[in-house]
């Protein structure tokens, strides 16, 4: 017995997306509350119905959120460990809580304001401390990585991308294709932060950040909040929108994937030169009873462009090592692609709310209301990744 089709996403809410720091004087709490209220309203529900929180990446504190919102009774609070990798997996945890009878109306929310801290490792106020003695690595062990010059997830992505290039012949042109596809999709969206066209020349003229990654290979730095509400499949059918069923969901990875990858990189090579998502992908497809050929649109966690290529491999859209030529052939384009990817513009061009913009887009695609609607979209893949255990993937189905 699994959670397949036992629960559905019924509401989505979001604040505007802001360039880093520009959401001030709003706070992470106020934006989270606004997104949750909008998601409940979208579903035709209210705070009186809300009783569960399935969160990830220290999004916010459920106790504070529930008190602020005035939730009558809290029945379920879970925070998946790790970082943005668990974003898609939080939907599975919400479905499990509902199917297991622990809660009825579960919210998943992410809120971020990067005024006083920056997620990628850049210093704020002279402090360069991201990930120091954090995320489960104690100081005796950080002594083996903190002096390497590897300071954040982008540096690890650069190391992994270079090894992928070495083993498989992947080229910067392939990374560029991911960036250009995302930008083309973002251009048409009023929510997007980057809407000027991006050409191959623009890409190759951009400054290097951590070779082989340039500015455009990196996620945007964004403020904002996005929330979704999940309820049981039975109840979903009576609500405002067509249900978006959770077909399958998994999070995890092989144990040796390890903590923050720029402080680790001790995993077997086939896991190192990947998004780390293969095991979660396999379990997700098994639960849903479908395969990659059944997916109509893929919302892939794009903290760095090479990670889109590696997730395309790890989620089975092309063989391992073929992700570069696969994107170069136009397969991820909105129009004419075999598997349209990040039709919302993704973290690379729309905005970065640590995975939740991808969930929002999946729901809009399956409701048929997306700006860049994929014709006849019935199944959407949402993923989370890729800097530390767990990675996650969820398959959503049109009701």
């Amino acid at each position, binding site marked *: 017995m699994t959670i397949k089709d036992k629960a559905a996403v019924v509401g989505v809410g979001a604040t505007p997306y802001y360039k880093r720091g520009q959401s001030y004087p709003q706070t992470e709490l106020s934006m989270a509350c606004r997104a949750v209220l909008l998601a409940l309203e979208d579903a035709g529900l209210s705070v009186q119905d809300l009783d569960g929180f399935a969160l990830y990446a220290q999004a916010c504190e459920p106790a504070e959120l529930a008190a602020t919102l005035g939730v009558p009774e809290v029945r379920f609070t879970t925070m998946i460990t790790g970082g943005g990798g668990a974003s898609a997996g939080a939907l599975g945890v919400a479905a499990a809580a509902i199917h297991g009878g622990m809660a009825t109306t579960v919210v998943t929310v992410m809120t971020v304001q990067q005024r006083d801290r920056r997620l*990628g*490792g*850049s*210093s704020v106020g*002279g402090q*360069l*401390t991201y990930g*120091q003695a954090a995320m489960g690595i*104690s*100081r*005796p*062990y*950080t*002594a*083996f*990585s*903190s*002096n*390497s*010059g*590897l*300071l*954040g997830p982008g*540096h690890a992505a*650069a*190391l*992994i991308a*270079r*090894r992928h290039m*070495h083993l498989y012949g992947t080229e910067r042109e392939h990374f560029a294709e991911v960036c250009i596809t995302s930008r083309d999709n973002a251009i048409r969206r009023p929510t997007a932060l980057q809407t000027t066209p991006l050409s191959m020349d623009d890409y190759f003229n951009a*400054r*290097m*950040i*951590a*070779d*082989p*990654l340039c500015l455009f290979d990196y996620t945007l730095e964004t403020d904002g909040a996005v929330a979704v509400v999940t309820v049981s499949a039975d109840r979903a059918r009576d609500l405002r929108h067509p249900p978006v069923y959770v077909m399958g969901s998994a999070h995890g990875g092989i*144990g*040796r994937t390890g903590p923050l990858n720029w*402080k680790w*990189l*001790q*995993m*077997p*090579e086939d896991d190192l030169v990947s998004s780390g998502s293969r095991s979660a992908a396999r379990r997700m497809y098994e639960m849903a009873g479908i395969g990659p050929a059944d997916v109509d649109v893929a919302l892939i966690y794009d903290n760095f462009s090479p990670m889109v290529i590696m997730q395309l491999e790890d989620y089975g859209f092309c063989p391992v090592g073929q992700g570069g030529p696969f994107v170069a052939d136009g397969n991820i384009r909105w129009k004419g692609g075999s598997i349209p990817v990040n039709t919302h513009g993704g973290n690379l061009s729309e905005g970065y709310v640590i995975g939740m913009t991808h969930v929002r887009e999946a729901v809009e695609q399956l409701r048929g209301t997306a700006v860049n609607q994929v014709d006849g979209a019935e199944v959407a893949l949402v993923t989370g990744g890729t800097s530390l255990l767990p990675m996650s993937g969820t398959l959503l189905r049109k009701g």
Partner: protein
Amino acid sequence: MTDGVTSSELRRGVFPGLQLQTYADETTEPFWSAARHDRLVVPRCRECGTFRLPPLPICHVCQSEVTDWEELPGTGTVLTFTIVHHPLHPDLAAVCPYVSAVVDLDGTQGEGARILVNVTDCDPAAVSIGAPVRIVFDHVNDDMSIPRANLVADRPV
């Protein structure tokens, strides 16, 4: 940026270090004691022979806690690397570009005993995957000796 580092000491290509104390415990102290004497000493499982870095307390292959410390030749090869151009801290503008690499250490099984190091004293363009390197130690204080790597030009691959 961190205790003991001032801008005047920064040198292009040499990452100054973020953690200048070892916070050594019983599982890591032998590494640092050897490093102070320019020796690369790494824990190895007595049961199955697997090397491990960082020196975690249990063998990840057979779960034994029985450990020997073995001296390695101090050479290795670059598994992968990045050339960091963008300074994540203003002080690092004097340091960028610098090279950071993952190195498979000679004498070990590689995976599970790799070392993450700044590759110094070279043209960043000269670094490549598979390049042979030697681990060197920068004795920044009485406690911390930062391992770094230098390219070895004359060693056969």
